[in-house]
């Protein structure tokens, strides 16, 4: 088990940490930096509940080793709360009751934000592809898709 010294920027703040070779980015975000929006569902890249942005790429943080994050910039939902588009997404999620148990909601919001950043006016099919890596076990996909669709149409500042 090797030790690694890693400096990364998390939600705009530089963090320097000693991590173990077995630590994942998910562990570090939750347990060391107390960012609890990032959930562990499967731990093997199947459910997407640990989705974050790593240098602008939507990734499963359970499949990224902390030791691989030297110099990286990581954004979790906590770092997106002031983002105007995310605020609209949150409103629309509330309006459509797009959260049942809520466990997938942070990842859905991060995936939706990533989708809208790349494609400002997605079709329903584009939205399905965009959130296809995040599993909702309440199977509440339909209101989620509606909420994202309406959020994409809303004017933001």
């Amino acid at each position: 088990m090797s030790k690694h010294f890693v400096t990364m920027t998390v939600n705009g703040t530089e963090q320097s940490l000693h991590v173990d070779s077995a630590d994942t980015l998910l562990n570090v975000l939750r347990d060391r930096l107390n960012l609890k929006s990032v959930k562990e569902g499967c731990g093997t890249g199947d459910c997407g509940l640990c989705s974050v942005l790593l240098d602008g790429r939507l990734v499963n943080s359970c499949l990224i080793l902390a030791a691989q994050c030297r110099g990286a910039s990581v954004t979790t939902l906590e770092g997106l709360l002031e983002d105007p588009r995310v605020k609209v997404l949150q409103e629309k999620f509330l309006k459509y009751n797009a959260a049942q148990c809520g466990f997938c909601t942070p990842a859905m919001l991060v995936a939706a934000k990533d989708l809208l950043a790349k494609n400002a006016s997605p079709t329903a099919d584009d939205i399905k592809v965009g959130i296809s890596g995040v599993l909702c076990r309440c199977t509440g996909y339909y209101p989620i898709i509606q909420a994202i669709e309406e959020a994409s149409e809303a004017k933001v500042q």
Partner: protein
Amino acid sequence: MPPYDIYVPEDLQDALRYMDDNGETTSIIARGTDLLPRLRRRLISASDLLDISGLEKEMRYIREVDGTIQLGALTTVSDLEGSPLLGRELELIRDAAVKFGAPQIRNVATVGGNLCSATSSEDLIPVFLALDAKVRLSSVKKERVLPLRDFILGKRTIFRKSGEILTEVELPPLPPNSSSAYEKIGRRNSLIIALVNMAAVISMEEDMETVRQARIALNRVAGRVPQRAPSTEASLAGKRLTQDALSNAQAALASELSLTDDFRASGAYRLEIAKIYLGRLLDRCASRLGGG
């Protein structure tokens, strides 16, 4: 996870030196989308990992050199999806990229990792087999380039010597009048292991109606590793793409596929889908030729 050490190299030369000293006991990790779940499920143990994910400057590129497309081993599936160099006759690459995993996986899964994982679940292997791709293996002392079909030896078995790192995939130019297509079926559309996937590259004679060469690859032909389907290819060569030619090709496919049942699907089901896909892919190749 079981304990292991990670070595983080400064650059590719440093990584090659490390492999020269420790290759026998080292697993190479790029973005880990295949390796980490297997480590975590304790399907494998690794005492040492060489982390090459930081070598993107040297190993993440898509470029064209004298008609050959070169893909750095750290090129991601999302990179393939967006590259203007991979349009036209290489359209099957985009077909495969958009059906690969989910966005979170496509953004990090690498070309080199997909080939080195060497199972029937690696969607890019049939694609690159159909394109007669070559892989470049580098070590401290030398480099060698070999056809992908000679690199994939069996399920999770590749012809990589202990000091080597797969650094590049090369796609030689296709004959004139070529087009290509790819299909995949799983139990849902996204984030799924293929029950059947198939890649086809068709090259026509000058008349644009007679097949000069057909290249067909599937995730399973016999055994659990992607391969080409040579009898099917031979049955199409010199033929026009008629219903008779398709029926003969489907018969050839049925004769050379030896698919067993497993927990995902029966062999009979896989065969039925493969026959349907053959027709669908030939249709799509033909229409892509027409459409320019």
